[in-house]
């Protein structure tokens, strides 16, 4: 846990404080993103926490201890530190780079070697082929993976990350972000993450602190920043497409309708058709008795057919996992011109359906129009 209490930093000779009276609490295990335009003081604020920059007034406590009462060297060894330029030591192998802090702490060689291999595996690099390389033999993405591994070497409860993925190409950045999130989900460290990229902030942050000119403008959940910007500055900063950005935050499972209308594959075609006409449904999801998706049927398939629905059901290949975010789901809907996506988990069980109308409603807040056809597909239960 990190607590900032009226933290102020004025550089010698400066008229304006770089950071002014900031109070903030980052609960244990949370990723808190410091974001703001360049020169807003976000990096300064982060560097105050491990005392790379001395504080002018106010206090910072880390896990309940005031940092001013701690030896700065000891403090820093207990806080992981990742920077944009990576800063791997060129003269050391990957192993020695990762082992830097453990070595400073006096771990045995065997223990360090074991830890190095463990961390390389954690950051998805093969220990055998990477531990003896030198930094110049690494790509940017690999180097920053090592940078993250190095910061976590001595298992610090807290990590400070200063634009860690800022210098990495957009494709690899996404990968590294995802990897870090999954590592974080496992290890639950308290993380301060500095960035100037609002999309990254929304993706990485469980909490976002938006700074401007050394002051805290708004803190809150990413959704709060997008949905209820405190003022014009926040509104401008998060951008006019903030509604779209919310799609990144929400998962399919948050937006899907549970228990969609469906029939079973061994239902009689005639009866199903009769129900579809009565309920004015153009097509229908077909499931088996274990609630696994079998496909879909439309009225034309059933017309005149005598037998089981399963025999005429068409395959439905485009489905979406409940864990995907809504942006990906929407993109899938738009590219295949679908009004509806069936949500299926890894085992093939139907979890629900996602339809464009409810999706727009959920994201847009104000969007309110009759759902029409899709609405009925997504309302409740087995058709027969």
């Amino acid at each position, binding site marked *: 846990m990190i607590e900032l209490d009226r933290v102020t930093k004025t550089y010698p000779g400066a008229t304006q404080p770089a950071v002014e009276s900031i109070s903030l609490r980052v609960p244990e295990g949370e990723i808190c993103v410091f974001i703001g335009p360049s020169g807003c003081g976000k990096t300064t604020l982060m560097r105050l926490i*491990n005392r*790379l920059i001395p504080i002018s007034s106010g206090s910072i406590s880390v896990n309940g201890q005031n940092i001013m009462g701690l030896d700065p*060297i*000891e*403090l*820093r*060894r*207990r806080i992981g*530190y990742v*920077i944009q*330029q*990576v*800063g*791997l*030591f*060129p*003269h*050391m*192998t990957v192993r020695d780079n990762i082992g*830097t*802090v453990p070595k*400073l702490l006096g771990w045995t060689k065997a223990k360090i070697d074991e830890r190095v291999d463990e961390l390389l595996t954690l950051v998805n690099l093969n220990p055998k082929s990477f531990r003896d390389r*030198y*930094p*110049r033999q690494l790509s940017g993405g690999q180097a920053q993976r090592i940078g993250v591994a*190095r*910061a976590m070497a001595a298992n610090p409860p807290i990590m*400070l990350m200063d634009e860690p993925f800022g210098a990495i190409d957009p494709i690899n950045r996404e990968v590294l972000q995802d990897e870090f999130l999954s590592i974080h989900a496992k290890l639950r460290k308290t993380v301060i993450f500095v960035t100037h990229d609002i999309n990254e902030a929304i993706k990485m942050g469980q909490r976002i602190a938006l700074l401007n000119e050394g002051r805290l403008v708004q803190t809150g959940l990413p959704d709060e920043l997008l949905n209820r910007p405190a003022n014009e500055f926040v509104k401008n900063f998060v951008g006019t497409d903030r509604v779209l950005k919310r799609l990144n935050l929400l998962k399919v499972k948050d937006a899907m309708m549970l228990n969609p209308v469906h029939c079973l594959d061994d239902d009689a075609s005639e009866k199903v058709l009769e129900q579809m006409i009565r309920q004015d449904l153009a097509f229908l999801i077909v499931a088996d008795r274990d609630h696994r998706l079998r496909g879909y049927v439309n009225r034309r398939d059933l017309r005149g057919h005598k037998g089981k629905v399963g025999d005429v059901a068409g395959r439905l290949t485009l489905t979406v996992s409940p864990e995907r975010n809504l942006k990906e789901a929407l993109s899938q809907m738009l590219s295949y011109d679908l009004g509806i996506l069936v949500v299926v988990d890894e085992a093939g069980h139907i979890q629900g359906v996602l339809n464009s109308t409810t999706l727009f409603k959920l994201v847009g807040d104000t969007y309110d129009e009759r759902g029409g056809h899709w609405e009925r597909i997504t309302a409740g239960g087995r058709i027969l």
Partner: protein
Amino acid sequence: MKPKGRRPYFTIFGLAFAFWLGIEAQHRGYVNFARENPREIYRLLIQHLQLVFISGSIAVALGLGIGIVLTRGFMRRYREVTLSILGICQTVPSIAVIAIAMTYLGIGSKTAIFALVVYSLLPIIRNTVAGIFQLDPALVDAGQGMGMTPRQVLFKVEIPNAMYIILTGIRTAVVINVGTAAMSFLVGAGGLGDLIFTGIAMVDAGLMLAGAVPTACLAVLLNWGFERLENLLISPGIPRGE
């Protein structure tokens, strides 16, 4: 590194040339002195080596020390001034440095060593400063951020990464020093300069060569030794300036 394939030809050519030079020298009687006075040459060579070694060690210790101090934050203000003063000093010819030193320290090896130290200081200091300053500031930031003490940042991060440039400075200084040390004879400190200057005075090519050839060989040998040392001391992770 030279391409491996060319090496044998280079060596063969070199050896043949040396052989021819030897025959020529023998023919003209240049090697007579050396053949008749090997002990004298050996004594002066050792004396020469001592001058180089003692002045070199002092210069390395002092130069590294001053260079490192100049890179510390608190010296920011004096860095440029110090370096330009040293640069100006370096333009004074070595023989003048020896002459000036002699007026204070008199005659003897002390004067010679003092002059040699002064003369080799600049390349060492300048390269130490340059070597540390060319480092990516992120390295120091990372070191500090991970909880290295200032001393650990210096010895574990800054110096190992600046080693290539620092060693180049030391090599330059020492190799130049071998040549400059020949002038020590002028203040009565001996060394191979003894033979060279006497040979010049007596217009005796044999005597002169008996001093000049070992001096040249010494410089080449030391240069080669430093190259070896570089391979040992510099991490393979650091790109060489080749």
